[in-house]
Each structure stands twice: as structure tokens, then as C-alpha cells.
């Protein structure tokens, strides 16, 4: 087979366009040519078909030129589709931002400390909180809690002072408690005393 024939640069550009290897300027030039050259557009379709065949998409039905021609005729009677409106995208962003702002404001208002309220929320700004020992020892808790039977593997990392020991009969002895607290130290957060006021300069 001979491959020597007239070399059409536009057709070579079309081949490069199929591969996505044509630069923007030449693409723009080729697209202008394609607007008025139905034979060149049909060639583009055949190049695609050859690619589909070589890539193993052999099961695809062949649409031929007829379907594309019919679609082109129908499309010619349609109004232009237009471009996505920039303001629509902007509006979507604005709506998203507005929703996020409302949620943030609501969350901020919800977690504001209530004057006279209980717990840390009632602590006056600037008033220090301290962490005090509750005085409850693990042994006290252990008396009230069942020693849950655990496997040897589970108990290994807990071989410290308060690690539970396996006790298969604990299930029978144990009272039913609403929750099972872990065996460890417990600390209770309480509001601390107000900071001491500066001493009056009465001694002067």
C-alpha cells in the first residue's frame, strides 16, 4: 500500500484535533473551516469510528452519517442554547454563603453564656475555673460497679493500678446499672472562686 499522496494540512490538523493535540489558535482556525465544510466534519466522525474500532469497541452499532445529519437538521431549527449566565452562578454562591452565615450566627447565639445560668456557662467572664479532686477514689467506685469479665487480651493494656481483673461470676453478682463506668480516676469541674480583688490602699 502506498502512503504517498497529497498532504492536506487541514486534514492533518483534524487528525491532531481528534487526539487533543492541536493548539488553540489552529483549533480556532480549523473550527471556522469546519463550520462550512460538511465533508470535513464527516471525516472527523470516521476518524472517531476508526479509533473506536482500534480500541476494541467493536460491539458498537454503526450510526453512519444518517443520524448525525438528521440531528444537525433538527438542531438547525432550534434556538441557540446560550451560555450559562454568570449571575446565576454568582447567585448560587451568594445563597450558599447566606445560608452558612445564618447557621453560624444561630450557633453563636445558642452557645452564648446565660447570665445566672448553671455550670460553666454561668461563670462570669474572667472568673477562673479550677479543677478540683472529687475525693472519690477508684476503690469506692469499684465497690459499686461490677468487675466485668474481660478476656486476657483485653485486660493486658490495663494492668495498672485500676485495671479490672477477669471475674466470670461478676455478671451474676453485679447489680443492674444504667451505665457501666470505666474504672479510672474521676475529676469534676467546678467553678473556681472569683479572683481576689486588689487590696485597698488603706495602709497608706
Amino acid at each position, binding site marked *: *500500500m502506498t*502512503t504517498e*499522496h497529497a*498532504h492536506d494540512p487541514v*486534514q*492533518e490538523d483534524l*487528525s*491532531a*484535533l*481528534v*487526539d*487533543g*493535540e*492541536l*493548539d*488553540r489558535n489552529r*483549533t480556532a482556525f480549523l*473550527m471556522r473551516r*469546519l*463550520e462550512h465544510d460538511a465533508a470535513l*466534519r464527516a*471525516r*472527523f*466522525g*470516521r*476518524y*472517531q*469510528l*476508526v*479509533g*473506536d*474500532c*482500534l*480500541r*476494541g*469497541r*467493536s*460491539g*458498537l*452499532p*454503526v*450510526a*453512519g*452519517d*444518517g*443520524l*448525525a445529519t*438528521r*440531528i*444537525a437538521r*433538527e*438542531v*438547525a431549527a*432550534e434556538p*441557540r*442554547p*446560550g*451560555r*450559562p449566565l454568570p449571575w446565576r*452562578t454568582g447567585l448560587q454562591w451568594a445563597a450558599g454563603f447566606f445560608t452558612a452565615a445564618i447557621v453560624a450566627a444561630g450557633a453563636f447565639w445558642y452557645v452564648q453564656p446565660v447570665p445566672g445560668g448553671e455550670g460553666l456557662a454561668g461563670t462570669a467572664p474572667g472568673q477562673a475555673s479550677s479543677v478540683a479532686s472529687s475525693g472519690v477514689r477508684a476503690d469506692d467506685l469499684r465497690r459499686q460497679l461490677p468487675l466485668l469479665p474481660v478476656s486476657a487480651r483485653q485486660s493486658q493494656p490495663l494492668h495498672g493500678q485500676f485495671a479490672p481483673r477477669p471475674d466470670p461470676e461478676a455478671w451474676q453478682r453485679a447489680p443492674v446499672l444504667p451505665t457501666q463506668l470505666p474504672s479510672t480516676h474521676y475529676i469534676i469541674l467546678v467553678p473556681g472562686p472569683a479572683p481576689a480583688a486588689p487590696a485597698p490602699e488603706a495602709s497608706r
Partner: protein
Amino acid sequence: MSERDVDQQLVERVQRGDMAAFDLLVRKYQHRILAVINRYLNDFAEAQDVAQETFLRAYRALGNFRGDSAFYTWVYKIAVNTAKNHLVAQGRRPPTDDVAVDDAMHFNGESQLKDRATPENELLRQEIERNVTAAVDELPEELRTAITLREVDGLSYEEIAEVMSCPIGTVRSRIFRAREAIDRRIRPLLSDS
């Protein structure tokens, strides 16, 4: 430019009123879209009508296409919906085994379609395949290597130039000449289809 970039550029041209750009998108994807629709309808003539409706819908909606997904993925979804609506309108039940959108790019439809196309279309398809294979076999070695590396292995021109130890311009020319040789073989088969 990647394939997706090329498609996006074509879409933007359509949005500016270039009908030829839409024609290129149709010619590029018509076989795959037809295959997807035929999978639902099991009737080649009917599938062509629904494919036409699919591309028309795509054209009307193209003003809202912003390129968040690949053009083919977007058209694929339209095709599936149009095919299902067509079946429902005719009182037929759509199949439940959808092809996932992620697989749509690589969907070749071979398993389902070989026995569903019309005998004429099946004959045409076989004839085209035979001619493409024969044309590739007859190509000079350097053209056959270039077109195979591009179409089968998906290498870029730059990568092919490296593999074949030649300038990118030569790669571009070899691929074009290979395509032309194959096109000369299949053009007569498609002239009246």
C-alpha cells in the same frame, strides 16, 4: 489539550452559536450513545430515534452545561433518562441494571449488542472491522506503530515521539497518514448509511 478540554472547547463554541461544533460532538459520541440506548430498547431503529431525541435535549440544555463533568458523562445521563422515559411512555418497564456513569466512558456494549442490532447493521459493523484490521495490517511499520501507540495504548504525541525516537511533527504526520489509509478503506462503506 486533553480529550475533555477539546470537548469543553467544542461546547463553548456551541454556546456561542457554532452549530458545526455540536455536529462534531454528535459524530464523536453517536456510536457510544446509540449503544447505551440500544441496551435499554433492544430495537436498533427505535434506538436511533431516541438517540436523536437525546442529542436534541442535550443541545437545548447545553446553556446550563458548565463543564463540572465530562461532556460524555453528561450526555450519557440524558441518554439513559430519555431511554427510560421512552419505555415508560410506551408502557414498558425500564431495566434495573443501569451501567454506572463511571463505567460509561469505557462502555463498549459488546456483550449486549452483538445480537440486538439489525442484521444489516451487524453486517456493516463486521465489514468495517474487517477493513480497519486489513488496512492496519497493510500499513508500513512506522505508521502502524504510531497509530497503535496512539489509539490502542493512548500515548500522547510527546510519548510516542520518545518511544519512536523521532520529532513530534513526524508522529503527527504518521498518525494522520495511517488514519487516511484506513479512512480510504471504510469511506465507501459509510457513504450511504
